[in-house]
């Protein structure tokens, strides 16, 4: 809650004004019954018609003032909670983009999404309602109790005696209720995941005629949600009837105790009647308080989830930069680097290579041999467990993220396209001119863009689902090249291109990106065979390193691959 409070704090002055206005409005409302009783008790018996009119009109004025202040206060409350939510959600998203890759893995993407959406929404609801009801309910409650105190202190004590019992019930129910709601939420997450999977796999499901099976699966998840939500609601619903019962029992005892006191001549029956009407106000206020309690606990649970992300320590800190020539060769250097995701089994071990400006490194090796991990390390998504990675002789850790990431143009496997125009997907938010985008698209062999009716303005669907595999890769390649990066990283980024296009691409790359240092991961020997250096990976270790010709002589694995792929020619 501390983190959430820090968002509320700057709003405290304006909130105090809002609460004060709300306070005024509520007090004005509390005045009305008193004015009514004055009319009935004082003016009517005296027959003062003009005063009846005067006070009647005053009542209307009070009511109008109460209306005005409540409307103003509510508007202010809405505006305040809007501002807080706006900032909170913004900061959360900012923080999410700054999480280190291992933190991202830890939170998992779906959970980050639900924190950004559902949880911020819950917190918003909480702040909003707290401001509106948070002052009204206590005033009605305390005001009601104070007035009854003046009327009859002993009878008030009977009422007040029920309060601890009520508190126990509210505490018990919300304590267990929150646990049950958490379980229900988990079941709902499961259901949503199921639905999401079915939607992405609709082709396979239909092809394998598994619709009924999927329906059953969904049904199980659906039932689970129903069962858990029901359990939670059944518990939460205890509050209202029990509170009513307790208060009404108190009321009955007020009548009995009152009867004794009237009998002793200490009090009047009229007082008991007045007492009972204030009772209703107190009861309603209590209901509001209990509702506030539920809302608070729900909001607080979400607040905690948000705070977990917001307070995640900054990882990947920048080390001190050494003064050295930032154009020095070797451009990229891996010095005996080992790394493991799980810290149990090494994913890559003892990777060692260096590249000069403008050189090309090809990486080839079986599925799962750690090729992509090398790129993740170079981008400093993770820090190596052993060894160092240097760019221009400077340790990677000494670069600020801005400095470092400016250098790269990257295409990952399964890279990310989003719902916007093709041009924007290539530009990717960078200040890049249309000419450069077109130039990069031409090199990326993305001629298909010009054939589209709207050209670069044509829309890409979410995850690029309206493009074919090859078209996606071309757009991604264009994105990587559009910034004229210092270093180009391509992770199996031409697997969906036919060989001819691939060859054209390589030719264009060689001509126009001669000074760019390139690392190319590929399954195809032809894609990397002319690289200055080729790294052959197997189970995370280097089993070969050298030029094509050297490897053809010395590396058995490489020979094998080459033979299968190019056998027909040689």
């Amino acid at each position: 809650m501390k983190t959430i409070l820090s968002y509320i704090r700057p709003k405290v002055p304006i909130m105090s004004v809002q609460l004060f206005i709300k306070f005024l409005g509520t007090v004005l409302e509390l005045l009305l019954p008193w004015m009514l009783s004055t009319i009935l008790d004082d003016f009517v018996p005296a027959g003062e018609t003009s005063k009846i009119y005067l006070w009647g009109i005053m009542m209307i004025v009070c009511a109008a003032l109460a209306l005005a202040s409540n409307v103003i206060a509510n508007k202010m409350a809405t505006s305040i909670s809007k501002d807080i939510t706006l900032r909170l959600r913004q900061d959360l998203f900012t923080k999410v983009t700054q999480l280190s890759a291992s933190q991202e893995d830890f939170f998992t993407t779906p959970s980050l999404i639900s924190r950004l959406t559902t949880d911020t929404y819950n917190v918003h609801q909480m702040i909003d309602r707290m401001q509106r009801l948070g002052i009204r309910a206590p005033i009605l409650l305390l005001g009601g109790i104070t007035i009854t105190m003046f009327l009859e202190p002993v009878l008030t004590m009977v009422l007040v005696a029920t309060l601890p019992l009520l508190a126990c019930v509210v505490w018990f129910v919300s304590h267990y209720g929150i646990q049950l709601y958490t379980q229900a939420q988990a079941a709902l997450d499961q259901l949503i995941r199921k639905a999401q999977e079915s939607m992405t796999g609709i082709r396979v499901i239909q092809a394998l005629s598994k619709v009924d099976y999927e329906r059953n699966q969904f049904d199980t998840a659906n039932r689970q949600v129903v069962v858990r939500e029901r359990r939670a609601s059944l518990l939460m619903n205890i509050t209202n009837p029990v509170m009513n019962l307790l208060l009404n029992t108190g009321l009955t005892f007020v009548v009995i105790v009152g009867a004794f006191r009237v009998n002793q001549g200490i009090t009047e029956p009229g007082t008991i009647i007045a007492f009972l009407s204030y009772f209703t106000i107190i009861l309603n206020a209590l209901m509001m308080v209990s509702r506030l309690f539920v809302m608070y606990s729900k909001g607080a649970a979400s607040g905690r989830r948000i705070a977990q992300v917001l307070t995640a320590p900054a990882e990947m800190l920048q080390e001190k930069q050494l003064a050295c020539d930032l154009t020095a060769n070797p451009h990229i250097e891996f010095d005996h680097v080992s790394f493991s995701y799980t810290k149990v089994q090494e994913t890559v071990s003892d990777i060692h290579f260096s590249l000069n400006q403008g050189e090309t490194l090809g990486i080839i090796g079986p599925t799962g041999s750690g090729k992509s991990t090398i790129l993740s390390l170079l981008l400093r998504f993770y820090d190596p467990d052993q060894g160092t990675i240097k760019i221009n002789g400077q340790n990677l850790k000494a670069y600020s993220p801005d400095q470092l990431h400016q250098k790269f143009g990257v295409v990952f496997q399964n890279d990310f396209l989003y719902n916007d125009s093709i041009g924007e997907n290539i530009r990717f938010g960078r200040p890049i001119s249309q000419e450069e985008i077109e130039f990069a698209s031409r090199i990326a062999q993305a001629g298909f863009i010009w054939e589209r009716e709207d050209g670069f303005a044509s829309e890409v669907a979410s995850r690029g689902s309206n493009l074919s595999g090859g078209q996606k890769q071309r757009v991604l390649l264009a994105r990587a090249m559009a910034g004229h990066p210092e270093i180009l990283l391509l992770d199996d980024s031409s697997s969906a291109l036919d060989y001819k296009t691939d060859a054209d691409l390589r030719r264009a790359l060689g001509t126009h990106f001669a000074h760019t240092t390139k690392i190319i991961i590929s399954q195809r020997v032809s894609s990397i065979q002319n690289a200055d250096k080729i790294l052959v990976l197997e189970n995370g270790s280097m089993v070969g390193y050298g030029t094509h010709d050297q490897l053809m002589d010395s590396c058995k694995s490489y020979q094998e691959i080459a033979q299968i792929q190019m056998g027909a020619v040689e």
Partner: protein
Amino acid sequence: MAKPKGILNTGGPSRAFERPSVPSTVILKRLWKYLSHEKWLLVLAIVLSVSANLLSLAGPKLSGYAIDAIKPGPGLVDFDTVFYYTKYMLIFYLCSAVLTYMLSSLMVQLSRNVIYRMRRDVYDHLTKLPVRFFDSRATGDILSVLSYDIDTINASLSNDLVQMFTSIITVTVSFGMMLSISPQLMVIFAFTIPFSILFTRYRSRKVRPLYRTRSQKLGALNAYAEEMTGGLKTIKAYNQESEFIHRFSERNFEACESNYRADCFASMTGPTVIFINNLSLALISMLGSLLYMTGSITLGNVSSFVLYSRKFSGPINEFANIISELQSALAAAERVFRLLDEPTESADAPDAITLDQVKGAVALKDVCFGYDNQVPVLRHFNLEAKPGQIVAIVGPTGAGKTTVINLLMRFYDPDSGCISIDGHDIAHVTRKSLRKCFSMVLQDTWLFSGTIFENLAYGKENVTREEVIQAAKAAKIHRYIQSLPNGYDTMLLDGGSSISKGQKQLLTIARAMLLDAPMLILDEATSNVDTQTERQIQEAMLKLMENRTCFVIAHRLSTIQNADQIIVLRNGAAAECGTHDQLMARQGYYSQLYRAQFDTADCDH
């Protein structure tokens, strides 16, 4: 209840969620359909609600009798009567509490049933929608219907319905009481009630579009957050955090702003209704005093009238809240129903036959097709495959290779032309039996959250563990699976995001190996599998292809050299067709493509 389906379906598959609003009566009618399944629960709820409320309304009356027995002055109290009535008060309150709890439990039951049915219907409908729908719609938006919108309806059903009953009963009873006390004073309500009705109607008309915009903007924000969170690594690698944060902030601002606008307006309601009540209170005091002075009413009557008018106005205030919640529930229901009104895959033709004992002769004749009407993807495309033949389709990206597969499986239907299997036009074959004829491995692999075993055994019922292991061995993924902590029982989380694309492809190949469909589709099935592994699984692949009509799309031309027929697709039509040797001899586009494979164009000048 025999209503024609799709009342809301105003013209074609236009974008859901952005169509003009639908009258609330139509939405309410459809909601009622869901409620009517629970008719008896509903009746029971009404009975419970009436009795619980009557019991609690009797409370004040009983306490009144008890107080009447308390005569002012020492020693005058009639304790017997006081105890008699207080005893009943306790009993009544206890019964009322029990009934209230029963009622709310009943409503929980009822609303969960409705929500369960609604979620099931939405999901069932999703499974019946054509692939085109999913290709063109953001998943996040649809998911928010399943979670957020249905939840809103749920909240409204379980709370608001009960509240409504309670309110109606309280209003009716207090109205009767007041009428019996003083018909003259009722004149005041003739003034204030129309006022509140007018206000409420004005309000609901104004607030619904605001709520709709709010849902829309919130949906857009959620979709954006979902999309971008999926691309964090790329955003980081390009150092574009600040740019995307900025874009997020625009959507965030819009969502907050539309929420503010809706809330602002909604937050006026409570105070306004309270004002109307206070107004009537002031008028009652004035008019009541005057009536008292003319002697036509007693002071006690004025005070009970005031008490009942409070009871009377309380629920009316509550009503305003209910209406504002109902408004958002209606907006949510509208979205749900719009999704339910999305046209489903057209039904199988009435004369559709079930394909059985398929030999595997496939023919496409003069097929034309485009995903949207302006851009044709296939133009007068022809293809003929004899049973057991391997047909390879090659061609540049976007030439329509995958489209052919989409048409074969009837994920889409051709605009013109005819596709037949064993001479049966597939337009007259049940989709289910048609799709059963194929097993397929696609470029975009799909795995679900479940164990590896479940994922592999997905296509075939009653498959033994032994068979699954055999398939995994043949697909050369067995060793990898065994190296995992739980072997075949390892859970794949998040659609298998933790394993590489190549491994995913091997898993889907193993899945296809377990099927025994007469035809096989391989769309870039091994594009991310390394060469050694590909060669190792080749034997298994050949066995898989044996005696089956196969459609193979591949860029590595070495994998398709021994195809019986290679079709070169360019600009949506078959440009060349023949065996590898024939095509090489032609010196056409294919031979160019083939040679490019060994073209060692370089990247380092």
